[in-house]
């Protein structure tokens, strides 16, 4: 690049805070003739034609901008993978099994208050949507799952969700059941262990 005017126009537009018209450029560059500036702009625009930045004219003003096909570079999305919290998983499951369902119903089923944030997360994830309002007093918002939900969980339809009996058969209820059982057995076990340990001396009746 040898043309000094080209260099001057290039630097001026680069440093400018706003797009500049040919007249403004010519005035800024002192003795430059408008025609020469126009020529310089044409040459520069050609030079930048296939580069990462472009020299473009908008409403008679010129400025540099990044190439349109690289717009994604300016706004980059970074995805962070996060596991759904236990509360959110429960709410999602309830929506899936009971849809359409209101928040009050979700809370009744879960037995605990559900924060609005939990449903927001599920909607942000694209798995739950607002499915209208229930025509009862208060007209509560009701929620349902989305096609993306079925897709993500590899379900053809909601019918593919296993029923309660199948859950039990599959042992999916076991952890809680076990705990329940263990609790109901507790008094008996305590008695027996006393006896077995040969605690006779401690028993006034023995």
């Amino acid at each position, binding site marked *: 690049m040898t043309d000094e005017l080209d260099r001057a126009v290039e630097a001026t537009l680069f440093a400018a805070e706003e797009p500049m018209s040919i007249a403004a450029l010519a005035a800024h560059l002192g003795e430059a003739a408008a025609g020469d500036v126009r020529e310089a702009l044409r040459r520069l625009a050609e030079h930048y034609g296939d580069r990462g930045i472009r020299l473009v004219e908008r409403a008679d003003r010129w400025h540099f901008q990044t190439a349109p096909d690289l717009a994604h570079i300016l706004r980059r999305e970074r995805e962070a993978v996060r596991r759904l919290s236990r509360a959110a998983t429960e709410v999602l499951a309830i929506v899936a099994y009971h849809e359409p369902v209101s928040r009050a119903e979700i809370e009744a089923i879960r037995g605990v208050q559900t924060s609005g944030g939990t449903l927001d997360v599920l909607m942000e994830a694209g798995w739950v949507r607002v499915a209208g309002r229930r025509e009862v007093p208060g007209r509560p918002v009701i929620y349902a799952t989305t096609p993306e939900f079925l897709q993500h969980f590899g379900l053809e339809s909601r019918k593919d969700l296993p029923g309660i009996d199948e859950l039990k058969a599959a042992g999916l209820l076991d952890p809680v059941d076990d705990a329940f059982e263990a609790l109901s057995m507790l008094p008996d076990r305590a008695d027996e262990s006393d006896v077995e340990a040969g605690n006779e001396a*401690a028993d006034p009746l023995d």
Partner: protein
Amino acid sequence: MTAEALVLDLGDQPAGDWNGPAAAPIDDDALYLELDSWEGPLDLLLDLARRQKVDLKAISILSLVDQYIAYIERAEALRLELAADYLVMAAWLAYLKSALLLPRDEQEDPSPEDLALRLQLRLARLAAMREAAARLMGRDRLGRDVFARGAPEGLRTDRKTLWQCDWYALVQAYGQVNARTAPVVHMVRDRPVMTLDSALDRVSAMLGVTLDWMEIRQFLPPHAEPRLRRSALASSFVAALELARLGKAELAQDEPFGPLRLRRATA
């Protein structure tokens, strides 16, 4: 010792660039005008040194001292207010000068040559930094000589959360919600028990058979399973207490937790 001997030649290092704005011919009036612009005695000394127009490495300390003292004396004569450190420096330089002029063998440590050398080293360091500062300020500076892009579009990174959950977690969560909130049924198992009434009947009947002391365990059903046996033991104990209260039986226990015996009241 002559003034020439005090020109400390520190070797053949290249001459620095001392063509600063203060390198004008010595002009006393100009000196006084600059009173405010000196930053302390070292600064004034450096300025005086530069006026000697020789390499700072070969500066005449004696001549420098004379100039400084002359400057201070004239300033005092003109009743200019001088900061204390200018006067301290003047006094020290006067001492240095007298020491430098004394015969060498009468000198104490530190030797005046060493003091002069130290002063010279300090002046050289200040001069070096002053020159460096000037060269630094003269560079092509961003925002003055060169410019960054006037209106950068800016880069943005939007963070998006990709939520992760699988079929198993979903179904298990539902199962647990169900299990947790299902109506809780408390199943009380049908336990073999011996009621107090039947224990009373049984103990009374057996007491009627013999007058001997009998251990309470002998009153229990002989082939009862362990849980019924425990229940029978409890009920029989209460029955024994009841019979004793009614005066129908006597109880005896020889020691705490020892065998409990009873027999029919003989009175």
